[in-house]
């Protein structure tokens, strides 16, 4: 086997506490060169803590951090060779755009002509040529964002860190910036750690996503793997919409397990059910687009009544009430499907569905 390339970032068992709060517990992470990794999780789960530990704004209580193969746990921020984009951009208000972008080059004592050339290149990269002499407050939010990005990239960092950089932008601009950031990141081939609590942003932008909750990294994987094979109940519920149905574990056969829900049997990954005995009740998770409808009376997962229908153009969401279920079920059907409120349906799993099941949490 070929030797693994030296990771751009490696986080080895890092723990950080604030008083009684464990903001980050035993985090392990490896980011290969050029990868775009997103830290995704709800507010307070420790995303910023992990990013600040990587940047060096915080010191870990335990564990080590390596950037580009070098141990940096004890290295101060200004010697780590990182580029960082802050949530509020943190552009120096008393400096022009050009001075802001040149700041990191001046700190590195890059000769004047070379610095001027690199600043011009960086501003061209973020499409801000001609704005050199403006002050940050004379720029729109999106333009400030680009300056912040240019300022972080011009120093050719070994690692680019971004903490919720788009949260202050309106939706349209955010979409455009997401595409643009990804393009720039790919063209420079710079390893990037991106923080967000927006799962849509995480799924659409990332090479891999690390889902976090309560100070722990729950799962690291490609957006597809996270969505289709969530490792635990938290990931399944946090990433994307999902339906939870009562089911029973029938048997475990190697990698897969068989669960029974209503009149249907589905195979699911066995790993999360390793500790459950056959016959025990489990929760079955199915995505809204993985449930099909059939005329009432068809043997399936359950029968349901459509309570509300929300039209979204290419698809429609059906909110259904099913007997014995506390939560409404969400179905995603083609936009032209006719089922409306009051319709009785039988629900079946899509044959290609990636169903997952977890033991009922105690």
């Amino acid at each position, binding site marked *: 086997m070929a030797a693994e390339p030296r990771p751009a970032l490696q986080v080895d068992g890092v723990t950080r506490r604030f008083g009684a709060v464990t903001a980050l517990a035993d985090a392990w992470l490896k980011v290969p060169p050029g990868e775009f990794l997103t830290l995704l999780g709800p507010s307070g789960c420790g995303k910023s803590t992990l990013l600040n530990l990587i*940047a*060096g*704004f915080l010191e870990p209580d335990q564990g080590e951090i390596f950037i580009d193969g070098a141990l940096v746990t004890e290295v*101060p*921020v*200004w*010697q780590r*060779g*990182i*580029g*960082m984009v*802050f949530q*509020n951009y*943190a*552009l*120096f*208000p*008393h400096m022009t755009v050009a001075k802001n972008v040149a*700041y*990191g080059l001046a*700190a*590195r004592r890059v000769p004047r002509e070379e610095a001027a050339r690199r600043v011009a290149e960086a501003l061209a990269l973020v499409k801000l040529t001609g704005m050199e002499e403006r*002050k940050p*407050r004379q720029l729109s939010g999106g333009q400030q964002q680009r300056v912040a990005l240019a*300022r*972080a990239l011009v*120093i050719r960092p070994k690692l680019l*860190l971004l903490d919720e950089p788009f949260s202050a932008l309106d939706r349209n601009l955010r979409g455009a910036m997401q595409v643009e950031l990804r393009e720039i990141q790919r063209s420079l081939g710079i390893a990037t750690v991106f923080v967000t609590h927006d799962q849509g942003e995480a799924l659409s932008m990332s090479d891999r996503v690390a889902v976090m909750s309560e100070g722990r990294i729950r799962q690291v994987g490609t957006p597809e793997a996270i969505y289709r094979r969530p490792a635990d109940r938290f990931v399944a519920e946090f990433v994307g919409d999902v339906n939870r149905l009562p089911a029973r574990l029938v048997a475990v056969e190697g990698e897969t397990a068989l669960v029974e829900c209503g009149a249907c049997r589905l195979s699911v990954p066995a790993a999360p059910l390793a500790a459950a005995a056959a016959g025990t009740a489990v929760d079955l998770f199915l995505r809204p687009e993985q449930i099909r409808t059939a005329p009432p009376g068809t043997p399936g997962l359950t029968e349901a009544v459509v309570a509300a229908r929300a039209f979204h153009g290419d698809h429609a969401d059906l909110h259904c009430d099913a007997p014995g279920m506390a939560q409404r079920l969400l179905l995603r059907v083609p936009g032209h499907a006719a089922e409306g409120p009051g319709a009785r349906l039988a629900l079946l799993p899509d044959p290609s569905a990636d169903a997952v099941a977890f033991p009922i949490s105690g």
Partner: protein
Amino acid sequence: MGKRPFLGWFVTPGALCALGFAAAMAAVLQYAFRAHIPGSLEVGGFTWANFEGMLRPLYATVFLQTVWLCALTAFFSLLLGYPLAHALVHARSTAWKSVLLVVAVTPLFLGEVVRTYSWLTVLGNSGFVNGALLWLGLIDGPIQFMFTRFGVALALVHVTLPVMVIMLAAALSHIDRDYERAAHSLGAGPVRSFLTVTLPLSMPGILAGTGTAFAWTFSAFATPQIIGGGRVNMVSNLVYQLGFSSFNFPFAASLSIVGLALTAAVLGLLRIGTMRLERVGT
């Protein structure tokens, strides 16, 4: 006002005070242009003589000395106050913060006379400093601190420091810490990030603090009176001597007016400076 007639009652005390102050100012102002009749508290007719008299070297030196002492005081309280304010704003533990706050602000609550007398016990020929230096054998005889400009300046800095620290701390606490963090992430160490980011961003606070310290010191009376002992005089000491020893109220009044105008001019200049800073920066 029409619907809430009682508001008028609340305004009355303030209006009365303002009226009182205005009347006093008017009195001082008109005294400044009256002739002094030696040996009498009555004043004579209109004259410019008081202002011309001020140009005599004896008085002009006091003005220069006052401006010089104000500048020195403002400068040294800035020099001492900045690190204190910085530490106060950036201290991590609340206990350490409280200690710094107490150290920085207590002079404000001591009262000028008490505070000045305590300097006597420190700076006097048999005071703490000289005693310690003599005991250590570093000096042979006591160093003269009392009745010197240095002694006066030292005590004035002590008086002015709390105001300076409070104003600088207010300015520093309004600077987003992310600027400093951004500077660090871009490769700037603590010194560079301080000089290129924190210091320029705190410039409005520095100007405001120095201006206030200057104006605050201009009106100092007890400190130069006691520590200067008549040998280091400031404008207010001169006003006192002229008013209460020579009973030359017109001249004392004209000195006060010029002092006031000078202070106002300095504050005005600083205001212009701050406005320019705001237009260019932040």
